[in-house]
């Protein structure tokens, strides 16, 4: 059967013409023909007409030929009465046959047509699948799916977008606010949505055909946005937009759902490609960074070590300037170490060994170092030395670094004679260490940035670059703790470090297994 109305009109007219063309010769030869011959001739015509012009035309032709048979070919001629009543049976039988035949033919034709359409659909989808898998770049696969959908469904615009808008190369511009809102709503709820003819947004599930034929298609819309899923994970949307209001019939909807699978796969492929690229870039950056760090570390530290050793030698020989050289070398070494560690901390590449440690161990070392590095500064420490012992989970060397940096920072700015207070205590599940000084404090404008590199140094006018606090904050974070600044009531700064605490096992401590009370200690240790 012809698809388009024009063809169907032509076929209908042709049928009428054929009807007349067949009837005339049959009439002319009426004397020599049997009724059966005419009936069969008309039946053939009905079948042909049904095939060409559709079931309705065939049905109409069946009725017309039934009447013609009666009128022209059964006595009395040119009347609708019948001389022999038994001819009614034949006539009605004929009509029934013709109608049923027309109907059956039409259905068979329609089934054949549907099958052909399905075959074409499958062929299209298979080709699309091959295109999108074979496309050299993920973006090409997306374009292939978009144009396939556009062509198959006859829409003006088709776009496939991932759920994170930064992920696709070209961001659509100049869109209507309604479309943007619709897209956001669909991404949020995971349900298809459309902008109908009145420009109103509606979200509703679109029916999808199961195994049987379904009657529903989509409502009318100007824009249709459908979510795309891969294994129940929302990966993006496919958007259809047309310059006129349109709708998708059941077949088109089915096709859209099938193509949407490919769209989802193409989106996922694009995402995976981006991830691979990013990981490769990160690995390369990390490799380069470590290379630089190692080279700088060795090449900077080695001459520093040599200079310091020689300077000490000179100092021992009595050269007073050599002492200054060693101090400057120490400052340089510290800066190099800080720079390298800061770079590693930023990349989460600094090794951290978290162990259960006694806080007083670190405090003792810090106080010892402070006593030699800043002997004129009074450092007061407050820690409960009764039971229970203050234990924390941290990297001991890193904690030392943090405390040393905080102390140096306090010492640099505090006026001579004022003490620095170091307090360690337990608060809930945290160990809290605070370093307070009576210096000028950090101006309010800088408080939010005090742990950024090079911030506090320039403000205080000090020669030392402000990396100590940045490194301290980074180390605190690397140990799953935090460092914060607060102004000290009465003037000055309080830096508070919070770290996870640890507790003694409730069962108590084991005693040594090798020594009895009344024996001399054995050589239990290997020298």
């Amino acid at each position: 059967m012809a698809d388009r109305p024009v063809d169907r009109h032509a076929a209908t007219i042709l049928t009428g013409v054929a009807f007349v063309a067949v009837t005339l010769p049959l009439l002319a030869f009426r004397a020599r023909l049997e009724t059966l011959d005419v009936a069969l001739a008309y039946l053939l015509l009905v079948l042909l007409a049904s095939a060409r012009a559709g079931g309705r035309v065939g049905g109409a032709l069946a009725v017309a030929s039934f009447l013609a048979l009666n009128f022209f070919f059964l006595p009395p001629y040119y009347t609708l009465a019948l001389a022999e009543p038994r001819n009614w049976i034949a006539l009605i039988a004929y009509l029934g046959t013709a109608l049923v035949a027309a109907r059956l033919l039409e259905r068979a034709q329609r089934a054949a047509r549907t099958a052909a359409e399905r075959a074409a659909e499958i062929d299209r989808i298979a080709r699309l699948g091959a295109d999108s898998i074979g496309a050299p770049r993920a973006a090409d696969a997306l374009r292939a799916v978009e144009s396939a959908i556009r062509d198959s469904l006859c829409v003006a615009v088709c776009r496939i977008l991932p759920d994170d808008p930064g992920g696709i190369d070209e961001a659509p511009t100049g869109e209507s606010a309604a479309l943007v809102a619709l897209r956001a709503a669909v991404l949020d709820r995971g349900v298809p949505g459309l902008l109908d003819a009145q420009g109103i947004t509606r979200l509703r599930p679109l029916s999808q055909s199961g195994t049987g034929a379904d009657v529903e298609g989509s409502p009318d819309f100007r824009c249709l946005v459908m979510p795309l899923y891969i294994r129940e994970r929302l990966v993006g949307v496919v958007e259809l937009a047309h310059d006129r209001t349109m709708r998708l019939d059941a077949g088109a909807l089915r096709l859209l759902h099938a193509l949407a699978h490919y769209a989802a796969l193409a989106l996922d492929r694009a995402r995976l490609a981006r991830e691979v690229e990013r990981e490769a870039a990160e690995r390369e950056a990390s490799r380069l960074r470590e290379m630089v760090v190692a080279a700088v570390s060795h090449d900077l530290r080695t001459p520093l070590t040599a200079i310091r050793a020689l300077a000490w030698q000179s100092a021992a020989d009595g050269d007073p300037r050599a002492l200054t050289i060693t101090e400057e070398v120490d400052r340089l070494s510290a800066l190099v170490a800080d720079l390298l560690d800061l770079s590693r901390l930023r990349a989460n590449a600094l090794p951290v060994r978290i162990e259960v440690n006694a806080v007083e161990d670190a405090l003792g070392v810090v106080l010892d170092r402070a006593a030699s590095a800043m002997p004129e500064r009074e450092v007061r420490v407050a820690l409960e030395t009764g039971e229970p012992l203050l234990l924390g989970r941290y990297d001991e060397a890193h904690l030392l670094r943090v405390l040393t940096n905080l102390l140096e920072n306090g010492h640099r700015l505090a006026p001579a004679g004022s003490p620095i207070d170091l307090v360690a205590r337990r608060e809930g599940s945290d160990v809290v260490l605070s370093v307070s000084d009576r210096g000028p404090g950090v101006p309010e404008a800088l408080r939010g940035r005090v742990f950024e590199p090079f911030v506090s140094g320039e403000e205080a006018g000090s020669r030392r670059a402000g990396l100590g606090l940045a490194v301290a904050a980074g180390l605190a974070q690397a140990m799953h703790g935090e460092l914060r600044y607060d102004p000290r009531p009465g003037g000055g700064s309080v830096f508070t470090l919070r770290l996870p605490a640890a507790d003694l096992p409730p069962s108590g401590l084991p005693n040594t297994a090798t020594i009895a009370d009344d024996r001399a200690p054995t050589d239990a240790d290997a020298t």
Partner: protein
Amino acid sequence: MTEDTSSLRVLVIEDDTSIRSAIRAAFEAERATVFEAATVAHGLRLAREVRPSVIVLDLGLPDGTGAGLCESLRTWSAVPILVLSAQHDDVGKAALLDLGADDYLTKPFSTVELLARARALVRRSTMRPVPGGDIPIEQDGLFIDLAERRVERDGAPVHLTPTEWALLAALVRNAGRPRTHAQLFDAVWSRSHGDAQQYLRVYVAHLRRKLERDPLRPRFILTEPGVGYRFELRPSREDAADG
């Protein structure tokens, strides 16, 4: 210093020329004889030929690790080994101490400190055992006699539990040398006690409270950060410029 170092034979294994010459200069100023090597292989060979009284070993050598050298050496020699380590390399330091190195110095270091530590190591290694046990320690109000199992602080006797004795003994027998957490733990407890981190810290804290004047500013039982602990016997800290 009063120590006679003219018979001191020092083997320096360090790949950087300038550091090596600085170390040489420091030791030669004390009239010690200095041998130099720049690689593990050369260092091992020289150690065998020269039989030094102390080895100064850098951790970062081009043809192998200090760890390998220590392991090899320790199969036939008890020569004291002083390791030169980079900053923040606690794992490396502890590993070498476990393998048989005796002490470490962090770069950049002062040559005064280097000399002091090298002398201390040599002194210990040449000490002959006193008949009847080690000499009791008496310093700054603290009295420790391992043989008699007696401890006094400012004249008052101090009672230690067996565990605390074992730990103190492990520290004192290696006075002046850092001991790793693992070494101390192995000396006092058997390894079957599982995760032992906190036990060691706790007992060290107990010892400090019993023996030190100010447990927060210990004078004898010092923390080697990230590595372990050290029992310090030096009369005063005035010659230690950096910690």
